[in-house]
């Protein structure tokens, strides 16, 4: 929605009086963020007039409260009036604030109202006068503010107490008051009091309803009390009160209708239990639903008839709660019969986030939430997930990544009658269109749809124009789109602008040109001065890159009281920018225990020379895939708490991270080698700026070098979101050019082929008869989104090619594919290469395999470097422009598994690099590549026939031990118990020690689930004497870090 549309009615109806009022409102909004923007007296007067006109119009439309016009006027009223500052000096001020609250609520922007109350009113300083009528009004007002703010149930409970307190004060104050007014205003005072008593009762009812959903007939009661209150207000001839009651009644009803009680009473037992639990939480309790949440329920989120629901919603619209209700509905229906829910997320850090949220929210409902790690292999502790096709499992919700789920479901998890997968929730489902992992996700959903007969789907995604097509793909006629990308509702407010350098020589300034966008951002005609620099060190002509502009702007606005994210194009750039900011930050910061703790942890994990530790001293951090997951998570926690000034990140930050950002400075929206960031990704990221709960309007500033850059940027942000397309089309386009190519060559050209081939080979494991398999092939291909989207000619071409593949496919290879996540082509190649190595079971012993003298790992790395799916990322590990050879790679893995610290590994491998650069390269190699791809490769090799492992002859325990070998690489440890500890987020530097204690206490620890480990580790006794020598952290601090990592604080 453009801002012109937001204020359209006001501007259209009163343009001749108010002129371009939408411009003034936007300027007012922007002025709250930028000191340089000030409204003239005339502009202020326009706003005051506009506000009054809005109220008059709201009144005119009072009987059409569901009309767009009414909504628009309420929104305009709120936007204008919330710009002004308020002091509470008299009743008029209170009535003014009441109106802002009421009209804000009636425009469905309760979240903005809460921000307004928190940022502009100090509730505790609202006076409570002695004059009884005022005492009542002020106390009621204060109570309403608490009802809006409600940090937790105590705020609401205090409201009940406060109204009761008024009742007990009646005797003390009423008599005096009436005596006083009898002289001056005869007996009108009495009627005013009676009206206020009824008003107080309404607030009492609201508080009770918010707390527990009682009384059941709250709306009728409210109607009654306001009828009486209004009549008495009229007799007392207090028309302000009369008007307030008229407005407030609708607010009260809206508030009731926003509550979880009103929306979810009687849905089912689990939902009712959940609601009781969530309202009693110490923090983050939920009493009211945001408009999109309410709307999704109205639109049939919980309708069991709908097999696939696609919810398109902007970032920050409260999607996790929507998912939680859907989970509860599914479990309520199917839990007793073994049904369970998969919550699929794109990143490892999201596994942790979602897992801990669900675990906390569902723990009192006796629902078991588990997570499977983000590794693309199944370790010894996870093997139970696929034993007997998962029939031995007992979780109710499993949180994992798309890739892991692909492995699990293909090995039978969720497909049996005993343990049916009944709901798949796909977070950030637009990743279907992602060029690298989109096909994997698409094939996963197709497989789930094929293999899990009772499954329903809930896809959560930002704007997709063709969401109908997606829902039809998964649910046919039983599909449903719930579009929460509403043109009039916004989770937050922001400016998108171009940052441009002006001036000459060493004197220049940077201004922000606000840009019109398709998704409601504020715009003003004049450029906003951001930075003014005189006698700079560098000439303007030297600031010739967007990155330089970004870092300059950031360094100059660093002191503002807003956390900033600077987006860099790639990992190396994050270090450069952070270093610049560090060097140019003159501010000194007071010591903060939490920041210091995390700094020490960074030093413990990454060494003293890793620059992040020093950056944190100036409240600067970096965030990208080369930083360990734990540290990224801790940085996010600091960011969420507002303890960081700047976070320099790559675009990976855009996926589902839950912290407040008020400013994003983008060097560029163009990825290196990939072209412009898809608009959906841009908005997914921009949507986080100025998010719910933030006081100030957000800013996304895009650096531009010249007018041409500005023009291009302006066009870019105006672009509509594109249709979500399967990556299949792209692949088939390539096939058209190379239709005779072998699959190995196709895979070599484009590893995305792997997902398709795996999909086909999985089908082979289900249909052994060749003819039937071929017959079914096309039908199963039609189950994919891509096959539906491509033209007939392309379908034929693809089918012919895959038919060729299918005919050559053996069942055994197909099985290997299912268990490894590699295509049969790669499997074949691996086997061929393995045959040359003559591996024996002895060589798989960890002491052998990870011994520095042993050659086995080098050979295995050699095989991995010849495997299409992982070849490219491994080759990305470079010294200068040269990729690491298999010798260096295997050494890297060995050092990592054997517990060397990152700086130690860096010194051994990147000898020619400076210390900090070497550390950067090492952490990037390990966290971005080795942990994921080498563990995946090793895990696959283990399952090959020439691996030297005879799985059939092994005991269960031996199997588990062996399956943990890849997990050693994934987690950087070398014992099974430390793998288990790492799965429970115990930091790598102490995983071995804590694991040892755990092993001593629980001999049968192999049977423990991650949740059980988490519960045990809450005992402080596991954390004694676990600190390595010279560690910057002590036991308590490690324990504190661990709790943070598991969101146990």
């Amino acid at each position, binding site marked *: 929605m453009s801002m012109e549309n937001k204020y359209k009615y006001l501007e259209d109806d*009163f343009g*001749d*009086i*108010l002129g371009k009022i939408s411009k003034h409102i936007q300027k007012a909004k922007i002025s709250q963020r930028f000191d340089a923007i000030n409204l003239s007296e005339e502009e202020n007067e326009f706003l*005051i*007039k506009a506000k*009054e*006109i809005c*109220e*008059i119009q709201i*009144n*005119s439309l*009072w009987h059409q409260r569901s009309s767009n016009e009414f909504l628009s006027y309420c929104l305009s009223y709120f936007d204008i009036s919330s710009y002004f500052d308020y002091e509470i000096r008299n009743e*008029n001020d209170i*009535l*003014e604030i009441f109106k802002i609250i009421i009209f804000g609520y009636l425009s469905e922007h309760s979240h903005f109202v809460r921000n307004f109350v928190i940022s502009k009113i100090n509730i505790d300083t609202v006076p409570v006068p002695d004059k009884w009528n005022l005492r009542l009004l002020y106390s009621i007002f204060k109570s309403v503010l608490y009802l809006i703010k409600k940090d937790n149930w105590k705020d609401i409970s205090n409201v009940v107490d406060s109204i009761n307190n*008024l*009742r007990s004060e*009646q*005797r003390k104050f*009423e*008599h005096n008051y*009436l005596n006083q007014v*009898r002289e*001056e*205003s*005869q*007996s*009108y*005072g*009495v*009627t005013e*009091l*009676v009206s206020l*008593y*009824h008003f*107080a*009762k309404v607030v*009492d009812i609201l508080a009770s309803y918010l707390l527990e959903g009682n009384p059941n007939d709250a709306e009728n009661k409210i109607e009654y*009390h306001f009828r*009486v209150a209004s*009549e*008495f207000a*009229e*007799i*007392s*001839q*207090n*028309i*302000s*009160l*009369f*008007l307030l009651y*008229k407005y407030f009644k609708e607010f009260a009803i809206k508030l009731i209708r926003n509550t979880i009680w009103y929306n979810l009473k009687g849905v089912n037992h689990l939902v009712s239990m959940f609601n009781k639990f969530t309202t009693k939480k110490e923090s983050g309790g939920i009493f009211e639903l945001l408009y999109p949440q309410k709307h999704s329920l109205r639109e049939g989120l919980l309708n069991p008839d709908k097999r696939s629901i696609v919810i398109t919603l902007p970032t920050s619209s409260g999607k996790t709660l929507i998912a939680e209700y859907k989970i509860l509905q599914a479990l309520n229906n199917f839990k007793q019969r073994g049904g369970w829910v998969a919550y699929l997320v794109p990143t490892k850090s999201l596994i942790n986030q979602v897992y801990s949220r669900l675990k906390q929210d569902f723990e009192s409902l006796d629902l078991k939430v588990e997570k499977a790690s983000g590794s693309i292999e199944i370790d010894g502790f996870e093997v139970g997930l696929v034993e007997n096709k998962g029939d031995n499992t007992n979780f109710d919700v499993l949180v994992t990544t798309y890739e892991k789920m692909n492995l699990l479901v293909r090995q039978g998890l969720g497909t049996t009658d005993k343990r049916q997968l009944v709901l798949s929730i796909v977070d950030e489902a637009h990743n279907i269109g992602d060029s690298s992992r989109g096909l994997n996700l698409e094939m996963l959903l197709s497989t789930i749809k094929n293999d899990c007969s009772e499954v329903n789907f809930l896809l959560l995604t930002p704007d997709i124009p063709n969401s109908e097509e997606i829902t039809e793909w998964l649910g046919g006629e039983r599909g449903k789109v719930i579009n929460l990308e509403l043109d009039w509702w916004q989770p937050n407010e922001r400016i998108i602008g171009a940052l441009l350098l002006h001036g000459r020589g060493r004197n220049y300034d940077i201004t922000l040109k606000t840009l019109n966008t398709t998704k409601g951002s504020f715009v003003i005609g004049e450029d906003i001065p951001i930075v003014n620099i005189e006698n700079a060190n560098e000439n303007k002509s030297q600031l010739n890159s967007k990155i330089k502009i970004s870092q300059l702007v950031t360094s100059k606005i660093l002191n503002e009281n807003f956390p900033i994210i600077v987006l860099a194009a790639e990992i190396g750039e994050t270090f450069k920018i952070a270093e610049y900011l560090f060097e140019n930050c003159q501010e000194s910061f007071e010591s903060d225990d939490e920041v210091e703790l995390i700094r020490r942890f960074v030093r413990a994990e990454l060494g003293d020379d890793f620059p992040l530790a020093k950056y944190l001293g100036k409240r600067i951090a970096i965030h990208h895939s080369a930083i360990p997951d734990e540290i990224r998570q801790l940085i996010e926690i600091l960011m969420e708490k507002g303890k960081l000034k700047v976070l320099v990140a790559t675009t990976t930050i855009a996926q589902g991270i839950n912290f407040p950002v008020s400013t994003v400075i983008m060097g560029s929206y163009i990825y290196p080698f990939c072209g412009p960031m898809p608009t959906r990704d841009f908005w997914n990221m921009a949507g986080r700026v100025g998010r719910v709960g933030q006081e100030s309007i957000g800013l996304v500033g895009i650096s531009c070098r010249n007018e041409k850059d500005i023009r291009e940027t302006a066009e870019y942000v105006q672009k509509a979101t594109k249709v979500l397309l399967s990556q299949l089309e792209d692949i088939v386009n390539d096939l058209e050019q190379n239709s005779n190519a072998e699959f190995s060559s196709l895979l070599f050209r484009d590893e995305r082929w792997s997902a398709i081939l795996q999909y086909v080979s999985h089908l082979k494991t289900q249909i052994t008869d060749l003819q039937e398999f071929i017959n079914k092939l096309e039908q199963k291909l039609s189950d994919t989104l891509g096959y539906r989207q491509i033209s007939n000619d392309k379908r034929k071409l693809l089918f012919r090619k895959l038919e060729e593949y299918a005919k050559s496919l053996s069942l055994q290879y197909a099985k290997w594919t299912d268990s490894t996540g590699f295509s049969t082509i790669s499997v074949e190649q691996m086997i061929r290469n393995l045959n040359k190595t003559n591996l024996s079971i002895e060589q798989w012993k960890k002491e052998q395999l990870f011994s520095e003298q042993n050659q086995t790992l080098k050979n295995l790395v050699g095989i991995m470097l010849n495997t299409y799916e992982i070849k490219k990322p491994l080759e990305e590990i470079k010294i200068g422009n040269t990729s690491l050879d298999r010798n260096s790679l295997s050494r890297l893995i060995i050092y990592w598994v054997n517990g060397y610290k990152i700086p130690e590994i860096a010194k051994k491998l990147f000898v020619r690099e400076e210390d900090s650069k070497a550390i950067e390269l090492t952490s990037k190699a390990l966290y971005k590549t080795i942990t994921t791809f080498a563990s995946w490769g090793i895990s696959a090799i283990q399952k090959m026939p020439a691996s030297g492992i005879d799985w059939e002859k092994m005991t269960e325990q031996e199997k588990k031990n062996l399956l943990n070998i890849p997990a050693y690489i994934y987690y950087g440890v070398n014992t099974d118990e430390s793998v288990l500890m790492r799965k429970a987020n115990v930091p790598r530097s102490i995983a071995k020690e804590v694991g040892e204690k755990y092993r001593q206490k629980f001999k049968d620890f192999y049977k423990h689930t991650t949740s059980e480990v988490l519960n045990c580790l809450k005992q402080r006794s596991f954390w004694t004497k676990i600190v390595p020598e010279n560690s910057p952290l002590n036991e308590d601090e490690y324990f504190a870090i661990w709790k943070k990592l598991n969101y146990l604080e």
Partner: protein
Amino acid sequence: MKICYCNCDGIKRGYRGLLFESPDKFKQMICSEVKCKLRDEPQRKNMLDILDNLKNDVNFESSKCLKTDYQLLLDNVESQNFRIGEAIAEVVLEDKFKCRFYWNEIRDARNQKGNKTGADLVGFIQYTKENDNEILFLFGEVKTSSEKKSPPQVMTQKNKGMADQLKDLHLNNGKRLNLICYLQSKIDIHEKFKQDFKKAVYSYYKPDDNYQLFGVLVRDTQENENDLKSVYENLKNTIPKSTGLNLVAIYVPIKKAQWQDIINEKMQ
């Protein structure tokens, strides 16, 4: 009715005295148009039940003090002469100034004791301007006085006198907005009202405060220009020229004490 004195600065500003010469005509007016405007009071007595039930309803005490005061109010409402004065003012303004009121509907906005949120007169006034009708909001205060002194105290009294009340109506934007919204809330919307209202809103929000203030003094005494002169002189300097400011004194030939009986036709 004749003009007994007049001092006008254009059509929207000035003061004038209007004299009812014929007692019969005055009687006829108050028995017809004025009476029409004095709708019966609603059954306030029913509200006593609500008071009795206060403890049950809202858990506040139904104290003796509350009940006594409410009874006082009921007694008082029945003998409110000021309402007749206000009705006379409206009838005269409608007749002589093209004003439109919605008296019956908005009666409760008026409070003779100077309630800080209300006004005695809320309506519209129509001016003809270059082939078009300009409609303005009209806000006003009405005073009824038999006092011999000129001007009577009701005009000059601090805070509650007409001068201060009109000043307050001018200075207090919020009060006027409340009156406008209240008017909107209480009136059954019909076409005529909608037209008036829309035009008045436009005029009101155009540059300069374009609305009309009226101060009406209903007198059962000898006509005297001093009743209005000094108050007008005082007000005209405070209230800017763009705002209409008319003061009107209506001199009636029958004593205030008799109005109610005449309306109730007891005199017959």
